[in-house]
């Protein structure tokens, strides 16, 4: 009998005890296992150590390891390097515990968003030794909404046009210098069987036309710049206004729609409207003839196509010039971490000729494309003359997205609108862009950039 005077079979009591014992053992195991995991990251308490995050896969991380090792050797400052895969989520996680990493290296396009969230420390360019070796145009791309700098330029690049040289020469056509040339070449690639296999299986160019992650806006920006259009522009009073309803924008988007997406078949690859860069592999698979993309793909194409099969050309010019989209990476300092001296020392090293060279060479993937340090020549350091095309494009004919505002919603809305206009061939471009303008105005108002 148990204490309630209830007849209880003996077996149950023993079962109960056994159960309790098992649970206790499990708890013990769980406790020791969990306690056994100690934090092996460098204590953020050590004043002479910096926690640095980059968004890198293991191969580029190896390059960063070399760069940081050289830095530590030179200055004695230790680097706790974290190549983070899930960058944004982990950053949010750390931000909510108010413990940001000391230094972050990430896209220039994120500056506005990070600053909006208060994650960045303002920087005075003059306090970074060697700042004079970076040109004014590049420095200007790190200016935030309040006029202060929030990042130090680290790597830059511009989009260039990669063309199947063997196909072009087989068809006897010149290198495309204008939109019209490019269109003619694309049509030729689509119809004149440049790979000689007797089948109509080649396409003019490959386009990541999906609205996902803003890809179509990323790709189309070069065309917008070349057509004389902009997405948003400063209004001179510290704010921004949307300008996608300009005549230039309507003309440009109409040209793109009528010729690339709604014109002759196969000028762009099938399925372009839902393709993102990872699925739009037609160029390296050998069935598309042109690709407007960044220089990081040069290595990929060398591997899959071979150096002699393709050429790197400046983006063809539109009515207003040949500006292509410029992008890159900045060094950001996390807000409030109090290691100013060490952070600045790291930044100075990263933009110095030695640091930049280390990041551009070696057997792993380079993490600096066009060096921001103007004393270096990309083609010489990468030991590849094709890089001079990219460098010239960046320095003379390129433009970034405006980095000061939080560009993510703006880019996304632009992408949604462009994708819809390109999908429905009968759509009214003027009306569609007017609607986009209204949406962008809403986005800007949300950010207090418009009255």
């Amino acid at each position, binding site marked *: 009998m148990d204490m309630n005077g209830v007849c209880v079979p003996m077996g*149950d009591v023993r079962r109960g005890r056994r159960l309790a014992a098992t649970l206790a053992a499990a708890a013990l195991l769980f406790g020791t*296992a969990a306690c056994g995991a100690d934090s092996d990251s460098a204590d953020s308490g050590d004043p002479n150590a910096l926690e640095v995050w980059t968004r890198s896969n293991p191969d580029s991380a190896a390059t960063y390891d070399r760069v940081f090792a050289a830095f530590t050797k030179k200055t004695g400052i230790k680097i706790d390097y974290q190549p983070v895969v*899930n960058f944004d989520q982990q950053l949010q996680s750390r931000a909510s515990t108010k413990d940001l990493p000391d230094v972050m290296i990430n896209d220039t396009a994120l500056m506005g968003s990070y600053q909006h969230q208060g994650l960045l420390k303002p920087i005075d360019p003059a306090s970074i030794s060697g700042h004079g070796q970076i040109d004014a145009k590049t420095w200007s791309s790190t200016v935030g909404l309040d006029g202060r700098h929030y990042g130090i330029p680290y790597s830059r690049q511009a989009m260039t046009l990669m063309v199947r040289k063997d196909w072009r020469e087989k068809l006897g056509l010149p290198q495309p210098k204008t939109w019209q040339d490019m269109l003619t070449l694309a049509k030729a690639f689509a119809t004149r069987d440049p790979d000689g296999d007797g089948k109509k299986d080649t396409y003019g160019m490959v386009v990541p036309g999906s609205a996902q992650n803003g890809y179509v806006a990323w790709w189309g920006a070069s065309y917008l710049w070349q057509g004389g259009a902009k997405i948003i522009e400063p209004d001179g009073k510290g704010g921004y206004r949307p300008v996608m309803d300009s005549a230039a924008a309507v003309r440009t988007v109409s040209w793109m729609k009528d010729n690339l997406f709604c014109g002759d078949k196969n000028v762009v690859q099938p399925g372009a409207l839902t393709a993102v860069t990872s699925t739009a592999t037609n160029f390296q698979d050998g069935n598309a003839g042109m690709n407007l993309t960044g220089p990081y793909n040069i290595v990929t194409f060398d591997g899959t196509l071979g150096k002699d099969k393709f050429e790197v050309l400046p983006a063809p010019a539109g009515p207003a010039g040949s500006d292509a989209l410029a992008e890159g990476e900045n060094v950001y300092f996390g807000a409030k971490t109090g290691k100013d001296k060490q952070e600045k020392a790291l930044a100075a090293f990263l933009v110095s000729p030695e640091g930049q060279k280390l990041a551009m060479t070696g057997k792993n993937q380079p993490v600096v494309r066009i060096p921001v340090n103007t004393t270096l020549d990309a083609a010489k350091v990468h030991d590849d003359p094709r890089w001079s095309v990219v460098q010239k494009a960046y320095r003379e004919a390129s433009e970034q997205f405006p980095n000061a505002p939080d560009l993510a919603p703006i880019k996304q809305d632009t992408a949604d609108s462009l994708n819809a206009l390109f999908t429905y061939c009968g759509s009214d471009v003027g009306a569609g862009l007017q609607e986009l303008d209204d949406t962008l105005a809403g986005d800007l108002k949300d950010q207090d950039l418009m009255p």
Partner: protein
Amino acid sequence: MSAPALDPVRTPSGEISAARARRGGKQARTTPARFDTALGWSDRPGPAWALRILLCAIALAIFAAPFLTIFSGAFSTNPSGSSLSFLPHDSTLLNVRVAGERGIWDYFSNSLVIAGGGLLLQLAVSVLAAYALARHRFRGQALILTLFMLTMMLPEEVIAIPLSLVLGHVPVVGLDLKGTVWGVILPLGAWGFSVMLLTEFMKDIPTEIEEAARLDGVGELRMLWQVVLPLCKPALGVAGVLGFIMIWDQYLLPLIAAKDPTDYTVTVALSILRTDPEVGSGVVLAGAVIALVPSLVVYLLLQRSLVTGIAAGATKG
């Protein structure tokens, strides 16, 4: 009428067909075969048999044939990302080797430990909970079941960051589970689906069996272990397979519970591989093939429990 024995009584025909089944199904059977399946397929060649073969072929073509392209891509050198092929060209094991160089086997073993431990925990927790919900009556029963189902209704991404904070500092005990396998296993322990599944199947067991056992003086745990569970084998099989797959396929959770890249599982590793521009699509496909093998093996192993019918004679109806 005496209380039936704990093992279901077998009728003669049931016994014969069970014995024949054990010997492998190609022998021509008489009547009992038509009672082995809901549609009464028979083993003997004839129009029904031919129809079944045809339908099976169609099912294979629809569901399994597309994977030939994945397998062929995994074993070809430089498969194209924009077209499909059913046979590998320049067949090679290079992709598997490159995947290995990228450390896929370490991630694989992480996944194995997590999935094995996680599944055990999940089954244990779910069996206990289902037993309580299905075979007892108490206030708040429906609410508890709804609570378990509720855990499945909020998308993972919304919970991700708060969960990451909880893992870093578990309330009350204040442990840091990040970087340990427990950080992934514990959150998966209470899976609403397996609780729901086991509850549903356990409810179906007729009360006579339980009453009979109680009359014999069987206690709760023994009741669960020796009486109820053996009758739930199909449900356990399903919960085992689907639970394993659910844990194996976890992506966000291992990502937020990891302290450094060595803690990643094979699903995370696959997505890293895909974003690596130096790695061709062949390597990614090889990784995908490696990743799907364990789940398939578990499914194979647990299939028996899915189709071994409860032999005739259990006190139903």
